[in-house]
């Protein structure tokens, strides 16, 4: 499977080259790849259906427990088949749809990478490996949403999707790491037996929350749903593929996959149930206001995603069954409808439902496909969507306590979905035909095959549910619940409450449609900003940016003094901790014996320091500096360091020369700082001084036994051939110090040279 994925990535990388060759016919070439994979997976079907699980593993980062482990069971096979099948439809469709775009080659690269990564995601048996693919799908989604990158809205939507899913990804990553810490492994299959241990662990709640945040962001559950409608900025094939059929189901896949391992607790089930239900209802209601074909579909997708999550939250056998049928049904009809929406957009130049109508005469095949897919979506017998909805209702009715609420919500949500379907699947084709930006005509074959196949499959699945779904269902449920699920799927179960609910749903949907069409101004009703998570997102970003701006302006304010104050205060503050902690332990007996000339020297140093600090004349300062330097030189001489004395004198003198050469160009001192600042600086300076004085006193308060001192004294003459120990240290014992030091001098000289000679005002 690793090889398969590698081929996938390579093939994606080759897309632009091939595209250049084939141009018009590239769609036909491109479809080979997903179809090949589809049939490849299909070939495994008997094996999986027989209850086998295919596992492959190879090392990647054994030290960290990350392996190329893949797992093909019912669940992953179902997803793989959906991914590759819809992939094939989309690839073909895009061949025609993307003709008008400039960068179709790149489009295929991204979408190829996406498909491969999505496959990797559902096939991974290693959590971290899965996470890698997870992030890759986010990135390819980002690149695809922003495909129309000249539009600011596209760029914004891409960023939004990336941030929301990326943020969730980080939560997921943390969850994965916690899971590792609990189980000692990243291998999903190894969690299987550790379920109880995980649930009992104190980190369990954190794991659940983190994993679910990851899943919810990816699958656009409330309150993270807002990125998905905005993602409709992407070209329609992308919306059909990533943002309806596959990628958004990754989160659901994750929940399903982890259901046995970390699920089953009230925390897990209730969180999923409530989030799913809220998403289902809330986003369906939001669809009411939409006029854009794709946004209408997007909100209905959200609702369906919510339903799917809710079903997992119910977690009963029936719910899992409903989950599966609904998942497949949705992938088929929504993929088809999205592509049809794309066709309409492509042929008429608009996606506004208010401007579409009466197209059935010009686009008969499209109309037929649309009707078929729409019936499935509305849940009309005998399509798969009908079975899906029936099972959903049935499973909800089983729920205790919450059941009534949930069923009302579900019916309401589905009514909105029906309304959406009426707008997308019927309104454009019937009725009056308004003038559209482009004169419409029937779509190209490439654009018809994909949706057509999906729609027809929806019908076939509905007619022969057991042939297509049942076995798969059992194996998949095995993966989710680890129980066998022998429930027959049947299309007709007689007149019962569920059927009644279905009728109610359809009726309500029609009412909603009519209300929107006939009641003027109903579209103007809007939610308060505070109730819209997308506004939260905007506010977070804006707030973050203005906080960042304020903070940066405050901290990186350009005043060198403030930087230095930060530096100095931090130093003093941190140093004073150990210093004062040690205050009790100091047994300091400083040498207070001070001779007259030492006192005089100290006096001179202190006074000239004061002179320099208060000086208003530059030359006076230099004189004071000279006195200071010479005094320090004398101190060196007094305390047995004639070499230091020599060097100090020489350098002080040359410093004076340099100062003199530089200084007459510099301005006289101006009194720039205010007196308050000066007081503050003086206080800081005094703190520094006191700290350093204390440190020196403390550090010199005890005997120092240095083996180095003894060694140098002994080795200097016999081994170093010199009586001046300091010099021997400099040119022999520690000669490499000196080597570095002369390098510093060299560079300094080169620097001065370059500074003075290479100047912009002297450029030719």
């Amino acid at each position, binding site marked *: 499977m690793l090889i398969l994925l590698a081929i996938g990535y390579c093939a994606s990388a080759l897309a632009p080259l091939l595209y250049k060759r084939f141009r018009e016919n590239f769609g036909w070439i491109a479809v080979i790849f997903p179809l090949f994979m589809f049939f490849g997976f299909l070939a495994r079907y008997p094996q999986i259906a027989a209850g086998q699980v295919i596992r492959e593993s190879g090392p990647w980062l054994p030290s960290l427990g990350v392996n190329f482990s893949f797992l093909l069971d019912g669940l992953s096979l179902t997803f793989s088949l959906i991914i590759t099948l819809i992939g094939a439809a989309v690839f073909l469709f895009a061949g025609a749809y993307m003709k008008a775009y400039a960068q179709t080659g790149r489009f295929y690269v991204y979408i190829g990478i996406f498909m491969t990564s999505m496959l990797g995601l559902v096939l991974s048996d290693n959590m971290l490996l899965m996470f890698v693919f997870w992030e890759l799908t986010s990135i390819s989604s980002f690149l695809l949403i922003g495909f129309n990158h000249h539009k600011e809205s596209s760029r914004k939507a891409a960023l939004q999707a990336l941030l929301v899913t990326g943020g969730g990804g980080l939560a997921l990553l943390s969850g994965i790491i916690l899971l590792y810490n609990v189980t000692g492994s990243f291998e999903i299959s190894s969690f299987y037996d550790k379920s109880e241990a995980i649930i009992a662990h104190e980190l369990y709640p954190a794991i659940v929350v983190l994993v679910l945040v990851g899943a919810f962001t990816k699958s656009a559950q409330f309150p993270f749903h807002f990125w998905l409608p905005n993602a409709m900025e992407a070209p329609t094939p992308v919306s059909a593929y990533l943002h309806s059929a596959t990628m958004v189901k990754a989160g659901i896949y994750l929940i399903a996959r982890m259901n046995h391992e970390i699920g089953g607790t009230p925390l897990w089930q209730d969180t999923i149930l409530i989030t799913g239900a809220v998403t289902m209802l809330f986003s369906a209601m939001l669809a009411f206001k939409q006029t854009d074909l794709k946004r209408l579909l997007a909100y209905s997708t959200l609702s369906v995603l919510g339903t799917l999550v809710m079903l997992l939250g119910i977690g009963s056998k029936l719910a899992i069954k409903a989950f599966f049928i609904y998942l497949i049904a949705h992938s088929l009809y929504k993929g088809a409808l999205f592509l049809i929406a794309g066709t309409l957009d492509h042929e008429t130049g608009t996606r506004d439902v208010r401007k579409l109508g009466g197209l059935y005469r010009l686009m008969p095949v499209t109309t037929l496909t649309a009707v078929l897919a729409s019936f499935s979506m509305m849940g009309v017998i005998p399509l798969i969507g009908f079975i899906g909805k029936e099972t959903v209702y049935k499973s909800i009715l089983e729920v205790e306590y919450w059941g009534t609420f949930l069923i009302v919500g579900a019916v309401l949500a589905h009514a909105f979905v029906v309304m959406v379907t009426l707008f997308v699947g019927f309104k454009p084709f019937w009725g009056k035909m308004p003038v559209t930006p482009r004169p419409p005509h029937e779509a190209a074959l490439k654009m018809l095959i994909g949706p057509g196949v999906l729609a027809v499959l929806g019908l076939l699945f509905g007619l022969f549910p057991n042939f297509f779904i049942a076995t798969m269902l059992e194996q998949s449920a095995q993966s989710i619940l680890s129980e066998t699920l022998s429930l027959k799927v049947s299309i007709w179960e007689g007149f019962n409450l569920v059927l009644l609910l279905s009728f109610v749903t359809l009726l309500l949907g029609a009412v909603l449609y009519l209300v929107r069409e006939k009641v003027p101004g109903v579209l103007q009703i809007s939610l308060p900003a505070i109730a819209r998570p997308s506004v939260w997102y905007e506010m977070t970003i804006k707030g973050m940016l203005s906080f960042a*701006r304020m903070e940066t*302006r405050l901290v990186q*304010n350009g*005043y*060198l*003094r403030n930087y*230095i104050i930060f530096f100095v205060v931090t130093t003093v503050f941190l140093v004073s901790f150990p210093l004062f902690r040690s205050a009790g332990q100091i047994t300091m007996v400083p*040498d207070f*014996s001070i*001779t007259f000339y030492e*006192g005089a020297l*100290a006096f001179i140093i*202190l006074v000239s*320091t004061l002179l*320099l*600090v208060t000086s208003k004349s530059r030359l006076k*300062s230099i004189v004071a500096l000279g006195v*200071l*330097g010479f005094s*320090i030189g004398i*101190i*060196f001489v*007094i*305390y*047995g*360091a004639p070499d*230091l004395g020599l060097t100090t004198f020489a*350098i002080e003198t040359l410093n004076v020369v*340099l100062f003199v050469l530089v200084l007459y*160009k510099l301005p006289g001192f101006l009194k*720039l700082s205010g007196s308050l600042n000066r007081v503050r600086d003086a206080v*800081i*300076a005094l703190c520094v*001084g*006191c700290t*350093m*004085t204390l440190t*020196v006193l403390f550090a*010199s308060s005890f005997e120092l036994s240095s083996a180095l*001192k003894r060694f*140098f*004294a*002994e*080795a*200097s*003459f016999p081994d170093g051939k*010199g*009586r001046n*120990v300091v010099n021997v*240290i*400099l040119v022999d*014992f520690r000669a490499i110090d000196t080597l570095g*030091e002369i390098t*510093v*001098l060299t*560079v300094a000289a080169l*620097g001065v040279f370059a*500074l*003075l000679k290479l100047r*912009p005002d002297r450029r030719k």
Partner: protein
Amino acid sequence: MTFLLAVIVGALYAAGTYLVLRRSIVKVIFGLIFLGHAANLMIFTVGRLTKGVPAFVPEGAEMLTEPFADPLPQALILTSIVIGFGVQAFALVLFKRAYLTLGTEDLDKMRSTDQLPEERL
């Protein structure tokens, strides 16, 4: 004298700190020089003081006998003095060029490289 030197070191540090906090670039240079002196003197003091006995092996002797001034801090200070000389020379010229090029000696007016784009008009 250790006490006195400790006070001197503290005073030099204080003066150096005070000076580098000025707005005039010339004063900042002085401050840096002060801090250099302070650090050197600090190493010297902390390396323990020995009065009047430099580390020279006397004629005729093979090695030094205690007491003698520890030569290692001296070598370190020497290195740091010389490095300091080079670096200070460079800094001095840099500050001069900055003053001449930017036309101000007021550090508070040298903020353009830090400012956020909105502020710079």
